[in-house]
Every structure is written in structure tokens, then in C-alpha cells.
């Protein structure tokens, strides 16, 4: 079996999607459309959004993605690390 290749590496910058999905999702609203940094893969799991609708899809990598609070809320010196499925994320190019 070919080893699974993760789409993102630790340190990659990613942006979360902005869609207001019509149903269950595990992308918290406060983290929509935000740019964060991948800190670690967090296992490979079927997308919760699909499972909640009774749809089966291939498992995909989940990542711990760290955000600066200021980027999420406009204030705060802390970070928030959220676990996000691959489908929620797009790469952010450049520094």
C-alpha cells in the first residue's frame, strides 16, 4: 500500500473556508475564513459533516491548526488551536 501523503506539512499556513454550510459542520463559526498554521496532523477520519448526513466518504487527514486570537476576534494575545478536516482548508501561499 502506498503511504498516505498529507496535503499539508507542519508549519504550513492554511485558510479555512467561509461557506455557511446547510447542516452539521465541525468548523466553528469563529474560525471561518481565518488564516492559521498547521501544528500537527490529528489522525485520519471520515468527514463529520458527511457522517451527520448519512453520507460515506473516504477518511481524510485532520489537522491541529493554530490561530492567533487577534486574527479570530480582533483582540487577545492568546492562540486557539482547532482540529480541522482537510476539506475545510486551502493553502495560503507566501510568507
Amino acid at each position, binding site marked *: 500500500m502506498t503511504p498516505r501523503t498529507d496535503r499539508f506539512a507542519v508549519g504550513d499556513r492554511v485558510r479555512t473556508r467561509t461557506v455557511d454550510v446547510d447542516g452539521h459542520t465541525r468548523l*466553528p463559526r469563529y474560525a471561518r475564513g481565518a488564516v492559521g498554521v498547521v501544528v500537527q496532523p*490529528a489522525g485520519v477520519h471520515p468527514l463529520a459533516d458527511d457522517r451527520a448526513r448519512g453520507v460515506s466518504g473516504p477518511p481524510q487527514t485532520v489537522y*491541529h491548526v493554530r490561530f492567533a486570537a487577534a486574527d479570530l476576534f480582533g483582540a487577545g494575545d492568546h492562540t486557539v488551536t482547532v*482540529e*480541522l478536516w482537510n476539506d475545510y482548508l486551502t493553502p495560503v501561499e507566501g510568507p
Partner: protein
Amino acid sequence: MSHDSSLISAQVRHVEALLEQRGLLDAGEIDTRIDEFLAGGTPANGARIVARAWVDPGFASRLLADANGAIREIGLSMAGGLQEQRLKVVANTDGEHNVVVCTLCSCYPIALLGPSPGWYKSEAYRSRVVRDPRGVLREFGVELPAGTQVSVWDASAESRYLVLPRRPEGTEGLAEDELAALVTRKGLIGTAAV
């Protein structure tokens, strides 16, 4: 927060009754399954993990790299539910304090620690700790130095989290079980120093 009088409790009782009427569930089967799920789950497990990590640096580094594997060394497991859940342990240091929340519901390492405290499931905690962790921690009596980085972990997917608190000063002479007795459930969630 569930109460017997709440709408959701009534709905759950209704569905349970329908499932029993149609022979899909035996009477009391859900209670039995819940009891099985919770059997052995107690914050004392988390305290044992922490105390071992304090006395054994090798265990501590294995715990941070692969918590599921490390806790098996001391006879614990995250496999108490339907499937083994991934455990992620986050360590407090001189410069960083970690705190855990599930903003979307109330995910918590139940199989290991038992049921979560009521405040952990409250909307107030879940909505506020991601925005203002220093303020929430202050209400819990944890005053962090301005230079301490606060890291909030939102259990939004399949991992469950445990905070590894810093070993208190002046505990060099304590045995492992005495150290474990210092560790609180709040310490394991990050809303207490230990």
C-alpha cells in the same frame, strides 16, 4: 445542560420508548451501555498519568509524542467507548499555559476521566474561554503572568485532550502516589494550575 424537564430529555425518552416498543432495544439497555462506558473512568486516571510524567521524563516525552501508546504502559486506555479515541496531551511550561474546551458540544476524555464537570458543558465557559481565556482563568482563581502564552485547544474533531500541569515547587520529596493526590480535574482541563 440536561435536566429531566428539558425538551431534549423528553425527546430522548420518547425515542428510547419507541425503540423499546419496536424491539430494537431491550429495556434498560442504554443505561447498561452508559454504565459500561463510564466504568473505570475517573480523574484519578489523569492524576496517575501526570504523576508518572513528573517522575519519569522518558514517559513524559512518550506521552507528548503518542499519548495513547504511553498510557497503555500504565494500564490505561482510550478504548472504553465504541472505538479508541486519539488522546493529545499538552504540557504546561514556564512560558505556556494550556486550557481545553469543546466549543461545539462537550467533547472530553470520558472513557479515561469519567463525566465532565457541569461548567465544562456550559455555554458560558464554551463561548468565553476561546475569546478571553485569561479572564475566564482569573474567575477560576488562576492568575497568569502577562508573559505567559495562553494556548486554548478546541476539541472540534476526533481527538480528546489532557493538560499536563507543571510540577509544583517543593514536591521533590514526594512519592508518585502523593504527587498524584495533588492533581485536580480542573488541572487536567487547564482551569487550575495543578
